[in-house]
Structures are given as C-alpha cells and as structure tokens.
C-alpha cells in the first residue's frame, strides 16, 4: 500500500509498504530516519517513542496503516537546525547517554513531559519516563538531564 504521513513537518510518501510493517520500520527503513530505535518491538522499552498527532506513542506497535494522514514528530525533528533542543543539550551535558540506544525515546518522552509540566517533581519525572528502559545509566544522570532541561526551557 501507499502511505502518506507528515513527518517532522514535511509531507512524505512511502510506496509498496507491507500491511504488517510498523510505523517504526517505515520511519527507519523507508524514510531514512533511523533516530527512533528498535529494541524490543513489544512496547516494553520505549526506544521507538515518537510523537503521533502530538502524543508520544511506541511506534513499534503502530501498524503502518494507522499512521495514514497523520503527523509524526521524531527525535530528528526536535532540534532547530544546528541548535539542539534544551532536552537534547541537557542529555549531552549531564552525561545521560552511554550506549545511546534508549536516548532518542527518552528525549521524546522528556520533551513531552516538559511541554505538559514545565517544572516536574522527581516523582513526576520518574512516572513519565517509566515506559523508557535504559540498561546502562542507572537513570540518575537521566533524571539530572531532565531537571536541567526544565530549568533551561
């Protein structure tokens, strides 16, 4: 099937999409956006988190057809040109990135949290990021990054 979807503000089209492909697969393999990661493909880890019509979703569990005509914003769409989004910058500054596999999903989830709750408590940060698993950092630096980003925005 043909899929039409607006990604990071641009109207994109993908042809010969198989019905069983996920939105994550389409983004990574057909639209050249490998930022969103594929780790578990079961909704468990959040590495594939993207905005779908303005709310974060696990793109690995979104069937391609579900995204038809909708708006997607990936981690690639957060920076303004060369200038990183404050959330991205604070992940770099806080040392919240080790292997980096979880980072794009966490950045999108944290970005959404700070849009809704500009000055979140630690409790709120933990709960908002509960769907994003990280096997490297132990989360402390990630919490630091989100606190810093909240201050910087």
């Amino acid at each position, binding site marked *: 099937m043909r899929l039409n979807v607006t990604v990071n503000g641009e109207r994109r089209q993908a042809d010969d999409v198989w019905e069983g492909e996920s939105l994550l697969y389409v983004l990574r393999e057909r639209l050249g956006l490998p930022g969103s990661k594929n780790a578990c493909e079961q909704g468990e880890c*959040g590495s594939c988190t993207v905005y779908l019509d303005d709310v974060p979703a696990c793109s690995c569990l979104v069937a391609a057809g579900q995204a038809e005509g909708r708006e997607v914003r990936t981690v690639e769409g957060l920076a303004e040109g060369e200038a990183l989004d404050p959330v991205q910058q604070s992940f770099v500054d806080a040392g919240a990135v080790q292997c980096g596999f979880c980072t794009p999903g966490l950045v999108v989830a944290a970005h959404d949290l700070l849009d809704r709750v500009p000055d979140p408590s630690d409790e709120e940060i933990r*709960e*908002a990021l509960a769907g994003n698993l990280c096997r490297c950092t132990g989360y402390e630096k990630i919490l630091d990054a989100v606190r810093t980003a909240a201050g910087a925005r």
Partner: protein
Amino acid sequence: MRTFSYVRAPDVETALRTIATEPNAKFLGGGTNLVDLMRENIERPDVVVDISRLPLTGIDELPGGGVRIGALVRNSSLAAHPLVRTRYPVVSQAVLGGASAQLRNMATVGGNLLQRTRCLYFYDEASACNKREPGSGCSALGGFTRNHGVLGVSDHCIAAHPSDLCVALAALDAEVEVESTRGTRRIPLTEFHHLPGSTPHVETALAPDELVTSVELPAPVTTRSRYRKVRDRASYAFALVSVAAALEVRDDTVTAARLALGGVAPKPWRATEAERVLLGAPATEESFRSAAEAELASATSQDGNDFKIELARRTIVATLRDLLTDRSAA
C-alpha cells in the same frame, strides 16, 4: 507475522459489514496488543479492520448521573477526564496504574477490555497452551506461575486477566454496549469475560462479528473510591494483585461497598462474597479482614502463586482502610 489485508473503516456501518462478511477478521483499536500478538504469530487474522478513526470517542454525561465512554476513547483521555476523575476516581487510578504513558496514549477502552492474557506460555508458540491451541495442555501447571490466578481458575487454564481498567469497571457495575449487523445489545461487565472451565479459548461473551461501541457507568454509589495495585516494581508492570474499591460509611457502619480484584483471576473478579460481609458491618479492620477471608475462601494456588492469597487479603484490607481514613478520597 502472516500476510493479511488491511481495511480502514470510515464508519461503524462499514466496520460491522466488513467483519460480518470476513470469516477471519479482527478489529484494530490502538494496536498495542493486537500488533504485538500478530508479530508473535499468536493472532493470525486474514483481515484487519482498523476502527481507530470511528467517531466513538466521546465521554458523555447521562441523565441519571452516569457516564457513557466511547469504545475508541484513549486510555490516557479516559484517565484525565474531569467527570471520570471526580465521580469515579478508581477508574482514573486504575488506568494510570497500567502500562506506560506511550501505551496509554494509543490504547483504547474497547481494546483494553479485549486484551489477552500475559501468561508467558500463551505467548510462547513452542509451549502447550489450551487457550492458544485447544486440547494441547497447560504448560503453566507445574511451571512458572507468579502471574497466574488463584480464583475462578480450572485444570485447563490458570491464566489471569491482565487489565487494570476492567477491575475498576467490574466494581462499578459497568455495562458494555456491543453492536453487529444483527443489532445492539448490552452485557454487564461482570458477564463480559468468561471463566476458563474446559474452554479457555472462549474468553468473552462477544461474538466474532460484534463491535464494542461504548461502556456505561451508572451514577456512582459514592465518589469515595480507590485503586490499589501491587506489582514487582513501582511502575509499569502488570498487577500481582490489585483491588478496586468504593466504600460508603455512615455512623461507623458500612452502607455501601463495591469491591473487585485484579491479577488473581481469569476475569476481572467482582468480590461479591466480601461485599456481602461488609454491607451493614461495622467499618473496622476486623470486618475488612473477615470480608477478605470470605472472598479468598475458595482460592486454589500453585507453588509459584501461593503468596497471592494472603497478599490479596491484605490488599483488600489496606484499600478499605485507605478509604476509611483518607478524608481526601471523599
């Protein structure tokens, strides 16, 4: 995943007509359970009917003080809705206690009702499982049973129903409205899910061609209600045991009690035995304990989930105590 064809339903009528004419078709709500199960080859539909754009997304107040929730309402929108938060706090809390923000943003009310068990043998194609492959046996018996049920289970299947939302709905006397080309009917939520008996593959009262269109909650008996979930980590895990409760107390006597359990049974478990003990009893820790014991009297367990029986009793007592003492829950 097997190849299938994908149909996007623009309206309810098309959805119903398509499902009525395709023998092996499935509705797709948010996809958070179906897409996963199709990828694991557990669900193998020939046709997927995407219903996510149907206009069943309203949360409307009903004349008698109840509320009608459209089947396509997202779990996150349900939890955040002011009417739900103020009149049925237990529903909001149950939804927020489940899955993650990303999943709740996609998951729909209808899909939540019809999500399938998280029994790990059900998910593993190489294991015997009566639910997946009728007559093949049950690998959970004698296996890893931490997530399995202790009430309402059978020799054929001991899987637990995984939903948090449904536990709250069961406590509150919700009704499910379903529609097919044959017409519309209503099913009480407590009769929507079946116990396994000798047919664990028959999970609900829903016919294959029926669409869940809405869930209705009657006016609450009290707005003092609460959901308590015990799990292996603080967030983002299925319930080991959960309790949905509403309690009204006058002159230190229980005048209304609604109680349901999650994580312990193949269906959201309305705790009618406990309710019977509570009604008219003094609102004390002793009554709460007697009620919990009455409810768990018929429990049966495996080595791996024996702990759930006492955990369920204690969680019932703790939830009722919370409701009694926390004035802010009123």
